[in-house]
């Protein structure tokens, strides 16, 4: 049993090593220009350079700050508004065309507008991160509040629960799995928002670093920054997973993450 378990644990590292090897031999054997795909060793050198450059911390912190603050704003407004819409059917009906309209607008197209309004500083990026994360959180909260089990409602009716008690003991906990699913999508969109915001304005953040690397033909560095962003995204995703285990330990999804974390 145990040796078999150990073997399955090796699959993921083996896949990564295999991928890097294929990458390396592809680039060397087919003479791929290092301005198109640099070899893994060059990316590794660039990554070491990136991580040892003092200004990297500042850039990472800027992106992280914009992402998290944008996400936080989106969560607070998304959950509050979602709860309100979910509990007030006529309001949801009235607001629905607007929600759909703002959802189908390619929000990245609004980035220049936000920079115009909020400047080249972190504010415009926070707004972009918040706007992108807002909709999945809002729609999931509405869905969560509306899909409260009828049997559970009957229990609360029988017990003469008032509106507040219904909200605290039934609607809120019942909608949390959906809210957290929205947040899981939202946090990833927040990073995208912050990075895209940095493309277009300002001189800080990992998004800026990407554009600067491209302009200087430092393709290895470009790959290194992408790798760093991926790691940050992964860590933030894990953060939501941890939040899930903390907030909804009763839900099946919490144990699924537990199992996934063990592998």
């Amino acid at each position, binding site marked *: 049993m145990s040796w078999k378990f150990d073997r399955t644990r090796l699959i993921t590292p083996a896949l990564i090593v295999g991928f890097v090897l294929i990458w390396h031999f592809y680039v060397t054997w087919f003479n791929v220009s290092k301005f198109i795909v640099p070899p893994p060793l060059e990316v590794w050198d660039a990554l070491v350079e990136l991580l040892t450059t003092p200004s990297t911390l500042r850039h990472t912190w800027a992106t992280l700050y914009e992402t998290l603050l944008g996400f936080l704003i989106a969560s607070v407004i998304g959950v509050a508004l979602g709860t309100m819409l979910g509990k007030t059917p006529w309001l949801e009906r009235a607001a629905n065309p607007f929600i759909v309209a703002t959802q189908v607008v390619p929000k990245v197209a609004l980035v220049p507008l936000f920079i115009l309004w909020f400047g080249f500083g972190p504010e415009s990026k926070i707004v972009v991160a918040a706007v992108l994360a807002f909709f999945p959180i809002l729609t999931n909260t509405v869905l969560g509040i509306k899909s409260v*089990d009828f*049997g*559970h409602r*009957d*229990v609360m*009716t*029988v*017990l*003469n*629960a008032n509106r507040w*008690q219904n909200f605290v*003991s*039934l609607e809120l*906990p*019942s909608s*949390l799995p959906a809210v957290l699913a929205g947040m899981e999508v939202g946090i990833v969109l927040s990073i995208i928002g912050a990075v895209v915001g940095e493309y277009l304005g300002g001189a800080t953040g990992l998004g800026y670093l990407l554009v600067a690397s491209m302009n200087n033909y430092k393709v290895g560095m470009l790959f290194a920054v992408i790798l760093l962003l991926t790691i940050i995204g992964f860590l933030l995703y894990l953060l939501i997973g941890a939040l899930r285990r903390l907030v*909804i*330990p*009763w*839900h*099946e999804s919490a144990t699924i993450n537990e199992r996934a974390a063990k592998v």
Partner: protein
Amino acid sequence: MTSSTAPDIRLAGVEKRFTADERTVLAVDRTDLSIRAGEFLVLLGPSGCGKTTMLRMIAGLIRPSAGTVYIGQHDLWVGSERNSAVTKDLGVVFQDANLFPWFSIEKNVALPLKLRGVQRKERLAKARELCQLVGIGGFESAWPRQLSGGMRQRAAIARSLSYDPHILLMDEPFGALDAITRDQLNLELQRIWLKQGCTVVFVTHSITEAAFLGDRILLLSPRPGRIDTEVVVPFPRPRPTSIQMLPEFQAIVQRLRERLEAIT
């Protein structure tokens, strides 16, 4: 188990119509019914005969289209609101346990007390006591999803008993369970009922379950739902499972089965 003969629950000309897609269906025809305090009354009938509708009207979960439901001397409804002065005395157990998955078992059992503002320590002590009573001691801190269907239903019964209701309404509470668990829970329900002394209205489509549990059985006929036959079950309490072997018991079952076949 009071000897009082004053009706605890009374249905006066109660009727329920459902309207869907401009078609009206008479679910429960004009019904008059009195249930004594402490009585164990069983509503028996095939699915779709309106027995659940009747129970939900007694629970105040749906309003009759006509007529009045009285709990004690009081109307169950005040205007369009449930009369909380009388509904606080009603406990309901559904076919699904309907436990809240985000609460542990003891917190589920203590939920009614929490809603009534009972202190945390006091309500959890009461919950643990009830878990013992219904036979799920040791599972107080488990999540509902970790328990079997039978154990979840025991917890649901404990929850409905937590505030000592005078009236316990049960809508096919053991309908989704296997036959062995069901027999066991029937036996325990009888024990709990004898200890608590509440009035029970129990909905089922199982004839043997009805005959084993009921002081009185009302057989309902379908479309529209109305009381067809009333059968009084005379056996003394507590009834052992072996009672089902007695010829008198078999005779009651036989009589109900024949009538049931005639009306469906």
